[in-house]
């Protein structure tokens, strides 16, 4: 393996300064994505700044939101009682992801920043990858594609953002707090990721040296219900083929308000705003659920291996809408 310098600072400012000063430096948190990428030879930082000693662990429960330290592990967040009560779909998405061993290492901040699982991206012997090297092409489009995206992609790149928990976090309008060389700022998740069809080599709006320190997650108001449905071939330890995170506030038989996120389909975690608008203020109607799904997937770009995902995503959303709206009656 390639030699690199390893730092383990104790303070956020120190960590940010350390990375900002060296263009070949990078932060290291749980390492569940990064170490794989290093072993694959895809990612070759000269300096790793291990942030595990920074005081960024833990969950602060406020009346309207959670302040989640970026180094909080997936298991820790899933175990928080308020998450089970007020953000059920976040808990379900967490527990549907990876394995308990990985969830005990993987951090929430790192989860949002995970790189695509595309095997063409992760194999440096594959030359054509616009995400890795701009303007080199995309081997996946003509290759074996299945665990790839159909929304927010085009023929230049079909990389999937495979996170589960990012989907409900996006739906509930969480935001991240970032410390960088030029100070602190807040970025709503809706503005955090960059779609592959808007530039395959750029994955998010963070600059070099920017560090996520906290994720602020609004609690669903009392009376809302939420749930996460993940569809995959294997029963565990597999990324979603499609998934749906749905939160609803019902008024009798009517959907008073709703939030929908879709996973397994987008180059970024996908907020289904069209579907939300079509369903808000309507009565429970599976036909309309399907129409809302179809509207969301209307812009899909597919290749032969991913074509089934359009229909599967519609079905996944419909099923989860049925489940969530039934549960309130």
């Amino acid at each position, binding site marked *: *393996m*390639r*030699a690199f310098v390893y730092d383990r600072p104790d303070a956020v400012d120190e960590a940010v300064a350390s990375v900002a000063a060296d263009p070949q430096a990078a932060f290291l948190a749980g390492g569940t994505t990064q170490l*794989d990428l290093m072993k694959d*030879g895809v990612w070759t930082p000269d300096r790793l700044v291990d942030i595990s000693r920074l005081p960024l662990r833990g969950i602060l429960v406020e009346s309207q939101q959670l302040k989640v330290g970026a180094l909080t592990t997936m298991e820790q967040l899933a175990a928080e009682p308020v998450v089970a009560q007020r953000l059920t779909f976040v808990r379900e998405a967490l527990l549907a992801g990876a394995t308990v061993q990985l969830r005990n290492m993987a951090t929430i901040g790192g989860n949002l920043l995970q790189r695509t*699982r595309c*095997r063409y991206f992760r*194999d440096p*012997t*594959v030359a054509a990858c616009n995400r890795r090297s701009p303007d080199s092409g995309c*081997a996946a489009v*003509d*290759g*074996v594609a299945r*665990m790839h995206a159909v929304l927010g992609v085009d023929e230049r790149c079909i990389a999937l953002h495979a996170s589960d928990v990012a989907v409900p976090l996006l739906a509930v309008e969480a935001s991240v707090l970032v410390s960088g060389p030029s100070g602190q700022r807040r970025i709503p998740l809706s503005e955090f990721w960059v779609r592959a069809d808007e530039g395959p080599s750029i994955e998010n709006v963070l600059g070099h040296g920017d560090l996520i320190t906290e994720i602020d997650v609004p609690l669903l108001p009392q009376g809302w219900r939420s749930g996460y*449905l993940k*569809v*995959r*071939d*294997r*029963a*565990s*330890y*597999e990324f979603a*083929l499609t998934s749906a995170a749905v939160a609803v506030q019902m008024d009798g038989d009517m959907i008073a308000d709703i939030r929908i996120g879709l996973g397994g389909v987008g180059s970024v975690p996908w907020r289904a705003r069209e579907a939300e608008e079509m369903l808000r203020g309507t009565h429970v109607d599976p036909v309309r659920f399907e129409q809302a799904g179809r509207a969301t997937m209307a812009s899909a770009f597919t290749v032969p291996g991913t074509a*089934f995902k359009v*229909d*599967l995503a519609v*079905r*996944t959303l*419909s*099923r989860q809408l049925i489940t969530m709206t039934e549960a309130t009656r």
Partner: protein
Amino acid sequence: MTATKPDLGTWVGKGIDRVDGPHKVTGTAPYASDVTLPGMVHAVVVTSTVGAGTITKIDTSALLTLPGVRAVFTHENFPRLNPSPDVLFGEAPTAPLQDGRITFHGQEVALVVADTSQEATEAARLIEITYAAEAPLLDPAAGQPEPLPLSPDTSRGDTEAGWAAADVRIGATYRTPENTNNPLGLMGCVAAWDGDHLEIHDTTQGTIALRKTLAAMFGVPESGVRVRVPYLGGGFGAGLNQWPYKLLAAGAARELGRPVKLMLTRPQMFRLVGHRPDTEQQVRLGATRDGTLTMIEHRATVLSSIDFLAVGLITSGTGHLYACPNVATVERTVRLNRRYPTSMRAPGEAEGNWAIETAMDELAYELGMDPLELRLRNLATDLDPASGKPWSSNGVIECCRVGAELFGWSRRDPRPSSMREGDLLLGWGMAAAGFFAYLPMSQARVTVYADGTAAVRSAATDIGTGTYTVITQLAADLLGLHPQQVDCRLGDSDMPASAQSGGSGLASSLSNAVIDAVSHLQGELLTLAGADSPLHGLGPDDVVCRDGALCRRDDPSVRVPIADLLAGQGLVEMSGDGRLRPPDAAAAGMVHAGAYGARFVEVAIDPMIGRLRVRRVVSVTDGGRILNRKLARSQILGATVGGIGQALFEDTLTDPGTGRVANGTFGDYLVAVSADVPDVEVVFVGEPDRYTPSGTKGIGEIGLVGVAAAIGNAVHHATGRRMRDLPITVDQLMM
């Protein structure tokens, strides 16, 4: 065989814990990856990034300046090797680094040796190789079909007449994809030379085949090559062949005059140690209205690499399971620019059974007949239908009946989609299964010591199935000792030669060698009994060993302590060597039967989102004499998990343009995980097989056979959709 039937039953059959269990759970069992020798250096294999062509340039000069790098071997400087000898399943795959030819993507093209594996890995990453690349041949339709030496065509009766005579006919094409063996233990070795003596710690399933290969290819005496494999992290067949990595490590060690350690990476395990090759199969079945088969035709094409052929065996069981007068099997292979194929757990049978047992289910539906009833009507239980001679044993009907009873098959409503539970469609499917009899040669040595303990020695490997344990139990019974008084040592080619663990043949082969060895040991001990001994004049089979004494078999109270026999001649130990002595089958008038089984499966399918879960499995096996109930159950359980993987997940994908493995990691290649495995009820039926004294059949593979077809048939029952291509995935099940 003339040996008296051994008295087994005190320890044989009991579900005792693994004798090697404490070593394994405390981390003290030495696997090849644990071996460290003084002066040892580390080698990393570099693999090709094109699927066909020729290497035009490898510049290694820059690598030699990197920290720790000792050598870089390429086809330009690696030693020339002698041709590979014929060993198990033919010769070795292509000898590595003999020329610049590339026959598949991911082929070995260089070996980097450094002081640490990290340094070697980094240098391997930086190597620059230029290729004259060619378009790889990847389309089976564009290749030349050729016969497979181990899978000859067979024919009996007149299949066209059988087709014409049928009232009901079905014909369809079935496909199985490439599966990768993926033992959990990474394969690799440590090779060390002392002059012309080579010692290699490896992950082979067969120490003797590897010894012969290394001796021949490096031009040294077989007596000077020692292969050591005391423990194996699995294999599923990936350890059967004489893979190039072993030759690379041995060659580098000889050139450098140092021990060389070479461990493959998980991605390399998808490329360099074989796989279950893809098949396409055409099956035609004909039957009269009452469900009697009038013909079976089974044609299979299996994919091979350019230089190394698949084993095949896809169609070889087809003519033996069902009593049908008209059967034809045809098997071909096509050489493509694909990685080396090999045997993977239940090779051929797992693929062929998928086609035949799915076709039988289709025939049952065409006939309007219960699929179980169709099997019972046609299974050949008394005579082998190919030879007309009686089987040495055959419990397949019992497997079907017992399984159906335990599963509750009689409560099945045969109409597709008729059984529901809320939103879920339930499906019940079954399949019959057979696995060929295979009895390779093994030898063993049994030694008794003056202190009353005993040892068994053989070059056989315990692949993880429990060979150490069952041989210990057997020897304990044969010698009248407690298992704790028996020390079983395996996995060393300096011990008596043995067959590989593979082909489900070792337990039977080695157990019969041990029985023979004890008989010889008793004969040797009798030679120590003088004229005044109460045992004087008795033959080897007139005596038995009991509690450290040699006794009259018909009157155990007449006994002489072994210690006294030994001391009388100034001896401290005595050994008997034995080997498998197969009976003359023609004289015995029987056909050696393999293992049989029947699988019953319930699936639940959520048709809206295509979600399939296996809900329960009843797996019944005729394994002859079961040597250890606990370990035997574990074998069937593990094989059932493998069958679920074959049915639903496992699919090694190849890039259409380059021939590169497209999903060669554990993150991308799915195997069944615990959450996919439901309650599995494992039951054994049948009697000790009559063909050998130990009466056992191999059960390492039979448990996988039939699982996929039972699942596929259950999917049809649940949905009305016929599954003919594996794996069965979500996108095929949305309704």
